[in-house]
């Protein structure tokens, strides 16, 4: 598979993967959950891909939601989901893949604060498969928000 080896060859994740960020931007911008996408700092130097989620899909108590995606040439990544709530609280979590000293390379920062970390398994590390998993999880989160109204 296109999954890079588990042992890191170097001590870092390499530069941002421009091609994967562009690929993900193309899919994100046509996703029904997403209102707007942007590259940071800009499309000529893509380092971070931002997806602004459609607030109309959320109950009124959620004022904004976004997805920040970093993808590195080593196949490592960080996908950060943040919800802002009316009462000023944040609800956030992060799908991460990078070497660290206490969890598996692939791990998950649990909501609501993204502080507690658990090991994570995914069926595939292909960017589009990771994207599908994350967006499906967010869709389920939105359903939970509605049903807890």
């Amino acid at each position: 598979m296109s999954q890079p080896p588990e042992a890191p060859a170097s001590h870092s994740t390499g530069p941002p993967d421009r091609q994967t960020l562009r690929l993900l931007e193309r899919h994100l911008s046509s996703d029904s959950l997403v209102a707007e996408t942007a590259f940071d700092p800009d499309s000529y130097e893509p380092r971070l891909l931002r997806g602004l989620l459609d607030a109309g899909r959320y109950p009124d108590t959620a004022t904004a939601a976004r997805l920040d995606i970093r993808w590195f040439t080593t196949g490592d990544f960080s996908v950060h989901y943040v919800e802002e709530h009316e009462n000023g609280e944040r609800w956030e979590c992060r799908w991460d893949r990078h070497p660290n000293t206490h969890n598996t390379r692939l791990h998950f920062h649990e909501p609501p604060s993204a502080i507690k970390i658990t090991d994570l398994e995914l069926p595939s590390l292909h960017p589009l498969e990771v994207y599908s998993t994350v967006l499906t999880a967010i869709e389920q989160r939105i359903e939970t928000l509605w049903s807890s109204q």
Partner: protein
Amino acid sequence: MTEFDPAPTSDDTQHRWQTGTDTFGRVYDVVLGVTSPTAYTEIAELADCSPNAAKKHLDRLAEMGIARADRDSRPATYERNEGYLEWQDASRIATELSIEAIIDRVETLETQRTEYESQFETTDPTTVNVFDHGDHENIHERMIAVSEWQGVIRDIRLYELARQLSQNDGHLIPA
């Protein structure tokens, strides 16, 4: 509130990204995310098509320069063609930005590079050890900083290529 599942299995067989694309589009998108030689059978699985269809489209993408093929391998393997895609990026920059804008951007990036060099006290980002440093957020911050530094170095090279293309009217080699 039910517990959040970070890796839900989708009920429908079609994965979210596959909606509205034909077989060629799916094979194209899959190979753009493939960075090491991968069997066409596996690409077929990811693209949700038959191995024969995947191979046909992958061979076409290889002819176009977008994919790299290793047909001697059994089964044949494919991955995206990094060099071609870099040239395409540079070519787009050369078309869309003026030479002055490109030079401006390189100057800004060179300043950023100098800042990273003094922050990490070296000129080579690959020598910085990112992952042995304390708590997770600390690792994360360093990881992003070193990655962006490497991105800065790469982008300077990319703009250099774009400048050459621009000066040679889109050609790599002067007429």
